[in-house]
């Protein structure tokens, strides 16, 4: 460990949030762009090792680790925040920019945290900032889903904190490092659960398709990038080669795709694809080879870019039309209105589907190939199948039923809002990166932390991919009418969340009813005693079934004072007898 201090790059993001709050809107926007550009410029010059870092204006000293794994994630985290800033230049709400900067900063904090406590603090901060980012959209649905998001992630945070405390009690050093697979205790599974919850592994994934579609079109771009990928980073750092992760990842990949196909909400569909794509990364971590883990990092890198681009495309549609369901959008002739947005979206669709010359083609097959090399045939097939589902869903179903699609006569007239130039700027920036990485993957491969050999453009791999893409495209086009979206929302594991919520509410209501009854009983007792105190004859009237007359001092004063005198005299005489 080096003894010197270092200014962590994520502090620039928190500074950006501060400037957003205090500066005028235009100046705040410029300062954010400059600070993010500065953070990007600083990254190549960061020395590798473990350093002390002091948070500005605080006495808190944390440990910062800089290595190739962290830097690969840091680069893409900074790049995507720049892209999202470009896309959201037109947004006037300061709150959204403020929480977006804090969220991005805490995501970077997770990447650079070298000790468990710092990791936990940034982990929780990320969840809180994300919830505020969702809430900043201000709709009733965003309020509800943001609250659910926060509840789920606070549960994950509790798991993580419990695991960390357990780890410390067992005498482990307070450094984020791979946990030995031989000493599996409760702490191991608590931390793993927490990481998998953030990675949206089923059945802990329902928060993602619930929350991401409810954020603003611009806020959702940040959300797609940080939480799940920070979790992939944490899995790579702490659980490399954990065998169960290979199967969890393969299941995630297919599960996400199957549920994506039946969605109607365009951003909910894309959210399920996040579950699926993160599945590939988790699988790569579980396979534990240099190729698979490098594949996970590379896929996280490319996925952040193309997924943001896809969400930008969907966000552009929502911004322009105010509609988000494919059943409402189809037949509106959106292609004529949002032609450029369609083509930019398709760059993202080709990237996620691993079409040659697009970014996904150079990263996803690394993991699939690693599964093949390890002889994991079933995992290989599951990943392959998930890849087909991604292709048919993002490149056919969503664009066809959003920009084209059969119309009906009773379609309401929609007032199209023109897209601001900033949206096109952000989308073009990411589309350029998706194509550039797809054509020239070497710079990305040089960033990867583990040595490997993989040539995505070998003739065999190229032909295999083209065979699969063309055959599945043929089948999809032939049966596209079956994929026609229905105006329903399909409930997923959130059914169980709702059941649990209803049961909890039922128990709470029972407790409330019991409390109300006890309170009523106590109130009646006190009222009775008060009445008795005011009018000692009231029970006689009650027994006789007569209405208790109201207290009249002139009527009752004499008998009351007489009674009190007799009682006091009795006690006085009793005391006298006892003393004598």
């Amino acid at each position: 460990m080096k003894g010197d201090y270092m200014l962590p790059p994520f502090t620039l993001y928190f500074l950006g949030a501060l400037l957003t709050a205090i500066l005028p809107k235009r100046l705040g926007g410029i300062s954010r762009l400059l600070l993010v550009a500065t953070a990007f410029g600083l990254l190549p010059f960061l020395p590798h090792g473990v350093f002390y870092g002091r948070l500005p204006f605080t006495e808190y000293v944390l440990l910062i680790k800089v290595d190739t794994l962290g830097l690969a994630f840091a680069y893409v985290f900074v790049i995507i925040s720049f892209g999202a800033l470009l896309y959201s230049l037109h947004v006037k709400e300061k709150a959204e920019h403020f929480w977006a900067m804090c969220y991005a900063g805490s995501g970077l904090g997770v990447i650079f945290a070298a000790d468990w406590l710092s990791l936990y603090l940034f982990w929780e901060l990320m969840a809180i900032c994300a919830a505020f980012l969702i809430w900043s959209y201000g709709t009733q649905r965003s309020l509800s889903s943001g609250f659910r998001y926060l509840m789920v992630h606070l549960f994950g945070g509790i798991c993580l904190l419990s695991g960390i405390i357990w780890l410390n009690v067992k005498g482990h050093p307070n450094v984020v490092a791979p946990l030995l697979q031989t000493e599996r205790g409760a702490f191991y599974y608590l931390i793993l659960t927490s990481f998998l919850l953030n990675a949206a592994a089923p059945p802990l994934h329902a928060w993602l398709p619930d929350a991401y579609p409810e954020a603003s079109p611009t806020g959702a771009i940040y959300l797609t990038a940080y939480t799940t990928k920070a979790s992939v980073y944490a899995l790579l750092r702490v659980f490399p080669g954990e065998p169960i992760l290979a199967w969890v990842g393969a299941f995630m990949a297919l599960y996400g795709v199957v549920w994506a196909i039946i969605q109607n909400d365009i951003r909910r569909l894309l959210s399920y694809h996040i579950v699926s794509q993160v599945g590939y990364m988790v699988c790569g971590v579980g396979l534990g080879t240099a190729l698979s883990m490098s594949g996970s990092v590379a896929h996280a890198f490319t996925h952040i870019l193309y997924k943001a681009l896809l969400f930008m495309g969907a966000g552009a549609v929502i911004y322009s039309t105010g509609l988000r369901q494919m059943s409402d959008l189809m037949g509106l002739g959106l292609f004529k209105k949002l032609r450029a947005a369609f083509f930019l979206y398709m760059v993202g669709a080709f990237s996620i589907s691993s079409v040659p010359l697009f970014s996904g083609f150079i990263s996803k097959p690394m993991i699939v190939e690693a599964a093949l090399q390890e002889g994991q045939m079933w995992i290989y097939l599951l990943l392959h199948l998930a890849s087909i589902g991604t292709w048919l869903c993002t490149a056919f179903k969503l664009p066809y039923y959003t920009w084209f699609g059969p119309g009906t006569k009773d379609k309401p007239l929609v007032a199209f809002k023109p897209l601001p130039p900033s949206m096109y700027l952000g989308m073009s920036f990411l589309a350029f990166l998706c194509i550039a990485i797809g054509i020239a993957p070497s710079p990305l491969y040089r960033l990867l932390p583990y040595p490997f050999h993989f040539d995505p453009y070998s003739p065999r791999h190229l032909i295999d991919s083209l065979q699969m893409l063309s055959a599945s495209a043929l089948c999809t086009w032939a049966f596209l009418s079956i994929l026609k979206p229905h105006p329903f929302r399909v409930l997923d594991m959130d059914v169980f969340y709702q059941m649990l919520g209803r049961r909890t509410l039922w128990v709470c209501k029972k407790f409330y009813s019991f409390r109300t009854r006890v309170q009523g009983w106590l109130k009646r007792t006190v009222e009775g005693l008060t009445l008795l105190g005011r009018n000692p004859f009231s029970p006689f009237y009650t027994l006789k079934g007569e209405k208790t007359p109201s207290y009249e001092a002139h009527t009752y004063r004499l008998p009351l004072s007489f009674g009190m005198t007799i009682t006091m005299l009795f006690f006085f005489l009793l005391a006298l007898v006892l003393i004598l």
Partner: protein
Amino acid sequence: MLRLLLVLSMAFFALGFLPLEAPIVHTPWHKFRAFDSIFGFLGALTLIFLSEGLGKFLLFRRHKEDEG
């Protein structure tokens, strides 16, 4: 569009038989050079009908979007 995709599929199917590179022999099916074409077609078919079936019959519940 369908015809174009059909032509492309057949072309890539045929390209698979070119002796460009030694096939990967980790699994028996990779000796069959049109594996990815067949798997792509059948995989897409399976997913379309699986999802549709799931959407129609196996879902726990469906809610009108307006009801949230």
